[in-house]
């Protein structure tokens, strides 16, 4: 659960609202982390998530064979660990899918064992 940079001071810019508070996370010797600079509880929650386990939703395209369009937009159905982004993108790049495809169709199940599926963002018919 803890990332590799846990012992270092980390500066996190809050994205919860356009105020954009700068939050500093400072770990002490016993491993407790002190968060400073947030101005609301949602900001603190965001900072904790960003500090311990930053996650992102991946959105990219997948190649399509004999489709109405050459690509289909895809996404992960839940956020995945930020440092796995590149590996997941490489997995997606390996695959070519066949239409017809419907929005929500699972194109890669449980990608790299990360408990997230790659799903289609739209319908796509044959050529």
């Amino acid at each position, binding site marked *: 659960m803890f990332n590799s940079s846990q012992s270092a001071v980390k500066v996190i*810019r*809050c*994205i919860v609202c*356009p*105020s*954009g508070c700068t939050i500093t996370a400072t770990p002490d010797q016993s491993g407790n982390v002190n968060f400073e600079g947030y101005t609301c509880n949602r900001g603190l929650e965001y900072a904790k998530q960003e500090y311990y386990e930053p996650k*992102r*939703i991946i*959105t*990219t*395209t997948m*190649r399509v064979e004999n489709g109405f*369009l*050459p*690509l289909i*937009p895809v*996404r992960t159905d839940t956020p995945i660990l*930020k440092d796995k*982004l590149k590996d997941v*993108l490489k997995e997606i790049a390996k695959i070519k899918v066949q239409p017809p495809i419907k*929005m929500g169709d699972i194109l890669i199940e449980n990608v790299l064992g990360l408990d997230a599926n790659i799903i289609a*963002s*739209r*319908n796509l018919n044959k050529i």
Partner: protein
Amino acid sequence: MKKYEADVVIIGGGSAGMAAAIEVKKAGLDVLIIERDYELGGILLQCIHVGFGLHEFGEELTGPQYAQKFINQVNELEIPYLLDTMVIEITQDKTVYAVNNKDGLIMVESKAIILAMGCRERTRGAINIPGFRPAGIFTAGQAQRFVNIEGYLPGKTFVILGSGDIGMIMARRLTWEGCEVKAVVEINPYVSGLIRNQVQCLEDFNIPLILGYTVTKIHGKEKIRGVTISKVDTNFDRIVGSDRFIECDALLLSVGLIPENELTLNAGAELSSNNGPVVDNNLESTIEGVFACGNVLQVHDLVDMVTAEAKRAGNLAIEYINERYGKEVKREKQIRCIAGDNVGYIKPDLINLSDISKETMFTFRVKYPDRRIQIQFRDKENNQLIYKKNKVYVIPSEMVEIKLNLEENQIDTGCQHLIIDVVPRPEVLIEEE
């Protein structure tokens, strides 16, 4: 010439057009959508990132997902639409002329028209970068279409001018596709887009953001091989000696959006300072029975806001057909809204005096960021403050929405001009909103 008839013609099959059409169809009226692209969905289809639908659907969708949900509704309701069809003229009597490859010239007679053509990007010409015109210069949205829909990469190493949201989102997208983004260069001393995009699209990938600089020279004659960027002063003039060369094989421009209103203008409607049509509090343009919604009226922050505005426009068009169409209604007195201090534009431009007992939805953008301000609505004729509201901050990238009942706020019925100012908060008022 092929002829159609519809109660309401909707020009544009993007998020605004589809939402308006659905409202009209549900009320039992005949509606026709005319779309110039080969499928419905509009710009959402190329915005494959997430961030859409939190208000409308309560979940974070991608652009194509958001569009698909509306396309599905259009199909379920069997709303007719013409694809690959370009509207070339609309007239004051609500006749629409369009062309396509199958039918040639098309004429559609209607009772009301809803303008939903969206907006387009400002280009190199709009920002006057001098020099040759080599290959490799794109607007951010153009590059987005190449990468996300057509499947082409327009370059390998990029400089992005302008820190608008599309530019920052493209910086991440191109990085994910294996390209190198050398820098995002912004002429203002602040970022134009959302902080969320600055963090997740630039800082996540250590893409340099260079504030207070602009591109002053494009290098290369046949193909771009780099740009010179220079620091600017407060008048945006180049500071001599601050030039830096950055090598790149593509330059993306993310320097703003303009409502697309050639049809509106040719029809004889009045446009306002944001290039959107002048509308009253019923979203009706200066041509009776012609309504506007979505980015053709004003560029919105969120598609959810476009949808909400388009639903309103749909219902107002229905109300027009049921209550006013075909009747002699004399032009009533209107209050004109004026964008004052630090206000770029204000919608609506006009308020019907007979509607002041209803709630008016005001929307505007500030010209520059500011903190601890007060929004003031003033009656110009008697210089009376009608309404004030404190806000902790305002930024140009965030549209301000204010719902206001002018009658309850004691507006004088003799008021002809309403001025909206965003000013420093008077010292005596220290309460937060």
